[in-house]
Structure formats: structure tokens, C-alpha cells
């Protein structure tokens, strides 16, 4: 994985000192809260419901065991013993003191980490495929390109006060595991007919209150123009994105209002101009980045496991992903124990995962946008030993991609923007389906819960989505069906009137019953929904 050189380290250290000064000026009263807020946000520091919250960047979701371990230590030293892995492959801490924030950033910088641009109206942490560099089905490893863009987007002088936040995802497989087309810019690394590698740009996707799927605006950008093209996309947005209404300020609204064709025309014009401006990093830089992501020294070994222990066999079936080397798999550590809080892990668990990565996965981990952790390169021969240790640390839930593997935002339990709680729903639903034993029968079923319209819980992209709203001071939940964030991307549709907490849990049960009654061979919930449409579900939920 990428390792900082002196320049990278200097940049992060400079930022720590800059923030230390800013926090000091705030505490001294030299900065008002209005002036300080965008500055602290650009260092990941929010003021949440109960305290300050710090979001730490995990660029393209990749980290090593020393970094993971440091995250566990921060949970214990500065927080209340736990952290929360987020849908942007980051981690956040819920109980941070402003006076500690600069010290935390300094601790992070010692392991080449930071909280730069994890919030604010700037280019956010760049996300990617959590199986990058390990999976059997990718064209190339997308992370060198993500790293190139990370450097370009860090402290970008022109794009630090954009109309609104800006999220970029980079993938390099046909399978989309990063919700690429639901980003402000989604980049797919592709090969053209001439056999050259380049970048396909999708611009103007997003979730939030106006979900949109990004249209493709360029099917092939040569690699030596990648940064320049992104700069063109951003400049058009910075100049013409709406600033009169923060709810219409995301780039998806600009692309929608101009039309993809006109937006593309403007980008192409800006791009043509920028090509002469020396924006692109020298080509050898990309070549410098690639070796950081080279394969670790894989060894041949057994390609199958002993399935005599059914619990282990179930975990292998559900929680491992096919690797490009046939003696390895990528193993997923579920942070969704039945009845637990999705994405939360204690300091001790985080250090355990770090240790296991060192022992079994060439020192590497990934954070998934589904709030789970990946050990990308695990020898099939080591799987049983790994699983035994995970199980002992309460990290062995065999429920990846099942109805128990719920994405849930922090909701009203933690978030100042939320209208309703998300976590208790996730807890009760996973308990209910685990108890009834229906989880296995339902197969792949992606349930996603957001506690407000901002959609951090990706409810628009859930096979089943739940959105919490405020109904006259009471929590109320809208159910939606048919969303997907994968390569078959689609936006979920609302079933009808909302439910209270008990009601929406019943409603989830009801729609899964419709699926079981109506499914044909091999159909997932989503497939059945797409075939039979909303009506049968509606009828079951609301009567005729």
C-alpha cells in the first residue's frame, strides 16, 4: 500500500499545526464559530448531538495494521472506547473534545493518517472498491489512480469553498462495489478498443434529498489527462453550481439543470483550456505510485477448506470473496453482530483486527462502505484459524450481504441532523430475522436505513430502504423498495404511507414474505421486485 514520502508527511504535519493554531484562535475568541466551522469541518470535526465528533480519513478504504491499531488506541485514549466505521470507508469518534483534536491529528500523522477534508464543502476522501488489488474480476488495481487524485484533491487551492461537498469514487471492475454512480464523480478505469487503459467519467450522481444516478460524460479519458479532466469538471461546478440554496448546491443539480450534454460541453471546453496549463502531474508520478500497490508474495497452497464444522463452513460461504490467487480469499469481518450497532467496534476489537491483518493478510485491511472490514489476502489454509480468533472476539458474524448486514447511519442517537433513530431498527430487525431463521432463506438482501433525508444510510440504494422522518415530533419511517448501488444501479421507490417503529419492522417482514411467495428460481429479492413490480408489495402492506 501507499507509503508517505517526506513531502506527504510534511503536508500532513503542516495541516496538524495549522489546525492547532485555528483551534487555539477559536478558544481565544479570535475566530467566531461561523468562521471556525468550515475550518474544523475540513479537518473532520463536527459538533454533533452530544459532543464534537471526529471523522478520520481512510483513503480508498485501505490501511495497514499499525494504522488500524492506532485507530483503536485513539478510541481508548480520547474517546469512550469505541469508533464507528462509516459508509464512506472512514471511521468516526463520537465523544471528542475540541482541546484534544489537534493532539489526535498529531497521533494520526505518526501513522500517516489524517482527517483532512472528511467534511466541508470540498473534495472529500476518495473511495474505492474494498476488494481492490485482491479480487479476481478487476482490470487493474484502481488505487494508484485514487492516490493520484487524493494528492490532487488535498488542499486544492481553487476547490476548498465549493458550493457543496464533493465525493469521488474510483473503481476498475465491471462489478461496482463502491456505489460509483451515486457519487459526484464516479470514475471507472477501463480499457478501450486499442487496448489502452483510461478513465470513464460519470458525473452528477448522489443520494441525499434528490437522489440521482450519474450520467456518463466521457467514456475514455487518457491516463495522462485524468487529473486535468477532473479539474475541468470541478471548475465548471465551482463557477456555476448553485449557491443560493444549499439543498440545490450539489453538482447533480447543476448537471440536471444544465442537462448532461451541456454540462459535458462546458467541461470539455474547460478541459481543452486546462490541457495547456500544466495541471497534470508528470506521468512518472503514476508509475511511481503503482509499485506501492503491487501484489504481496503469494504462495500456492490448499484451495479448499475442511467443511466439517458447519458454523465455519457457513462463515466461509457468506463472508469470503474470490481472490485473484486461487490459494487465497478476501475475508470479511462483519461489524453487524446480531442486535449490535452497525459499524461500531471497540478499541480492543480494532486492535484485534489489526493483529489478525498482520498475521493473516500481509498487514493490510480495508473498510467497506457497508461498514464491515476486509482482510484482503487470506490464505485459504489459514481461514479456520482466522475464523476461530474472530469468533472469540465476537467478530465472526456470518451474515455478509444478508438482511442482517444492515447499513445504518448513526441516526438520532448521535446525529444533530437526524429526524429519527436508525440503530434501534437495525438491532431489532437483525434480532428478529436471526431468531426466525429466515435470514438464510432470504439470501442476498440489502437493507439500508437512514435517519434523515440526507441519506447517509444509503436508503435510496437499498433493496429495502428505510428513511426516518419526523412526524409531529414522533419518529416515523418510510419504506422503499428496489434500490441498488451496484452495477445494476437503481433508486428505490417509496411503498406508501410511513410506519411507526414497530410497524416498519412488521412491514419489512411483510415484504420479505411477498418475495418468498413470489420468487422464481435463483431470484434475489431485488430481482423479484423488478419482475413483479411494486403492486403486490403494496397490497400486502396496505391492503387493496
Amino acid at each position: 500500500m501507499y507509503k508517505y514520502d517526506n513531502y506527504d508527511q510534511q503536508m500532513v504535519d503542516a495541516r496538524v499545526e495549522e489546525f492547532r493554531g485555528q483551534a487555539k484562535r477559536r478558544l481565544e475568541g479570535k475566530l467566531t464559530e461561523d468562521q471556525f466551522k468550515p475550518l474544523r469541518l475540513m479537518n473532520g470535526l463536527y459538533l454533533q448531538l452530544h459532543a464534537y465528533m471526529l471523522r478520520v480519513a481512510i483513503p480508498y478504504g485501505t490501511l495497514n495494521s499499525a494504522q488500524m491499531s492506532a485507530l483503536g488506541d485513539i478510541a481508548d485514549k480520547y474517546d469512550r472506547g469505541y469508533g464507528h466505521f462509516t459508509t464512506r470507508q472512514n471511521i468516526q469518534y463520537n465523544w471528542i473534545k475540541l482541546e484534544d483534536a489537534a493532539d489526535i491529528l498529531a497521533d494520526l500523522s505518526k501513522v500517516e493518517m489524517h482527517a483532512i477534508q472528511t467534511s466541508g464543502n470540498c473534495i472529500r476522501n476518495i473511495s474505492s472498491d474494498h476488494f481492490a488489488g485482491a479480487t479476481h474480476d478487476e482490470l487493474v488495481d484502481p488505487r494508484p489512480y485514487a492516490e493520484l487524485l487524493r494528492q490532487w484533491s488535498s488542499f486544492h487551492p481553487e476547490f476548498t469553498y465549493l458550493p457543496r461537498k464533493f465525493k469521488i469514487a474510483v473503481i476498475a471492475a465491471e462489478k461496482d462495489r463502491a456505489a460509483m454512480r451515486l457519487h459526484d464523480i464516479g470514475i471507472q478505469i477501463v480499457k478501450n478498443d486499442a487496448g489502452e487503459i483510461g478513465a470513464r467519467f460519470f458525473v452528477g450522481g448522489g443520494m441525499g434529498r434528490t437522489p440521482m444516478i450519474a450520467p456518463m460524460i466521457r467514456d475514455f479519458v487518457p491516463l495522462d489527462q485524468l487529473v486535468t479532466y477532473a479539474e475541468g469538471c470541478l471548475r465548471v461546478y465551482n463557477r456555476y453550481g448553485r449557491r443560493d440554496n444549499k439543498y440545490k448546491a450539489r453538482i447533480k443539480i447543476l448537471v440536471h439543470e444544465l442537462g448532461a450534454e451541456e454540462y459535458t460541453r462546458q467541461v470539455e471546453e474547460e478541459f481543452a483550456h486546462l490541457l495547456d496549463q500544466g495541471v497534470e502531474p508528470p506521468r512518472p508520478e503514476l508509475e511511481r505510485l503503482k509499485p506501492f500497490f503491487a501484489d504481496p508474495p503469494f504462495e500456492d497452497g490448499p484451495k479448499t477448506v475442511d467443511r466439517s464444522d458447519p458454523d465455519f463452513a457457513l462463515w466461509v460461504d457468506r463472508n469470503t470473496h474470490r481472490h485473484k490467487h486461487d490459494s487465497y480469499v478476501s475475508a470479511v469481518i462483519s461489524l453487524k453482530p446480531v442486535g449490535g450497532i452497525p459499524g461500531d467496534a471497540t478499541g480492543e476489537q480494532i486492535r484485534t483486527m489489526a493483529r489478525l491483518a498482520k498475521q493473516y493478510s500481509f498487514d493490510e485491511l480495508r473498510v467497506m462502505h457497508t461498514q464491515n472490514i476486509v482482510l484482503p489476502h487470506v490464505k485459504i489454509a489459514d481461514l479456520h484459524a482466522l475464523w476461530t480468533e474472530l469468533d472469540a472476539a465476537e467478530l465472526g458474524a456470518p451474515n455478509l450481504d444478508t438482511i442482517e448486514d444492515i447499513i445504518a447511519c448513526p441516526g438520532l442517537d448521535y446525529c444533530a441532523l437526524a429526524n429519527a433513530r436508525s440503530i434501534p431498527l437495525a438491532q431489532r430487525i437483525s434480532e428478529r430475522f436471526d431468531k426466525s431463521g429466515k435470514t438464510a432463506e432470504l439470501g442476498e438482501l440489502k437493507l439500508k436505513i437512514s435517519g434523515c433525508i440526507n441519506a447517509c444510510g444509503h436508503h435510496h440504494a437499498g433493496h429495502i430502504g428505510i428513511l426516518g422522518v419526523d412526524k409531529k415530533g414522533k419518529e416515523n419511517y418510510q419504506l422503499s423498495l428496489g434500490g441498488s448501488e451496484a452495477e445494476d444501479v437503481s433508486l428505490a421507490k417509496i411503498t406508501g404511507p410511513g410506519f411507526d417503529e414497530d410497524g416498519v419492522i412488521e412491514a419489512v417482514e411483510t415484504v420479505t414474505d411477498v418475495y418468498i411467495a413470489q420468487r422464481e428460481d435463483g431470484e434475489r429479492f431485488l430481482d423479484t421486485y423488478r419482475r413483479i413490480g411494486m403492486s403486490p408489495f403494496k397490497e400486502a402492506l396496505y391492503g387493496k
Partner: protein
Amino acid sequence: MGNDSFDSEAGSLGVSPDEVQFRFRDDEVADHGTVTVDACCDQTNATAVRIEPGDDARALLPFLDRLALVEVNFPTFGDGRGYSAARILREAGYTGELRAVGDVLIDQLSHMRRCGFDAFAPDKRLDEEDAVKAFATWDNVYQSAADGRKTIQELRHE
């Protein structure tokens, strides 16, 4: 250019809102009254213009030769359109004074400087010491911008 010095004497000229507090130029302080972008395009003798956030900086490109001063107004510091305006002018070869005016604060100075601003006239006078520190925030930079600094990527491959 990261360690260039500025002429803070300009700031001692007075404390009225439009006074320049920091200036990175050796020529005389341009003291022309500014006109709007529209007026500048209409009248052939204007030598100083003020760009508001919604203005298209490219409308000025035909007149760059006669302009000695371009002010870019930041009515609120969170409106970042002025950064693009500045770079566009520098990319087009404008070499006159490029002055950031309005809600110009300490923590935006380094980025403004990178986008080509070489004079700063904040609404409220800034703490001198904090500002000096802010201008020097970045020893090196990741992006090529309007300040001509070599990027980290270029330095890596020299």
C-alpha cells in the same frame, strides 16, 4: 514563491475598508476607482474592475492589456467562485494587480495566494502575525496553480 515577502506598509496607509493590508508587488499601489465587469466591457478607458461572485471573469479577457487592477470581491468567505476567477485571469496572462477584497480572513490567505492574488484588502484588518503564518502554511504544494510553484510531483521527478 512560498517564502516571498510582502509589503505590509501598504496597510499602514489607513484603515478604511478598501485599504490594501498585504501586497506582494513592487509597483505602485493601483489606486483607480473600480467599475463593474459590465461597465468595463462597455467603456474602453476603465483600468480597474471589480468582479463579483456571479460575474464571468472570462468576459474581461479581451481587455486584460489595459487593466492595472482587478478586484475580486468575496461578500462571504465561503463563496469560492473568486478562486476560479483569479486563476482564469492568471491563466490568460493577466499580470496586473489581483486584489482580494471583502470577507477575506486569515485561513483563506494561503489558497488565495496560490490562485494568483497578490494583494489583499480585507473588510476587517487581520492580525499581522497570524497572517504572516498563514501565508507560509505550505512549504510545498500538491497542485499546479497560478503561483508558478513547482508541485511535489514535479519535485519528485526532477
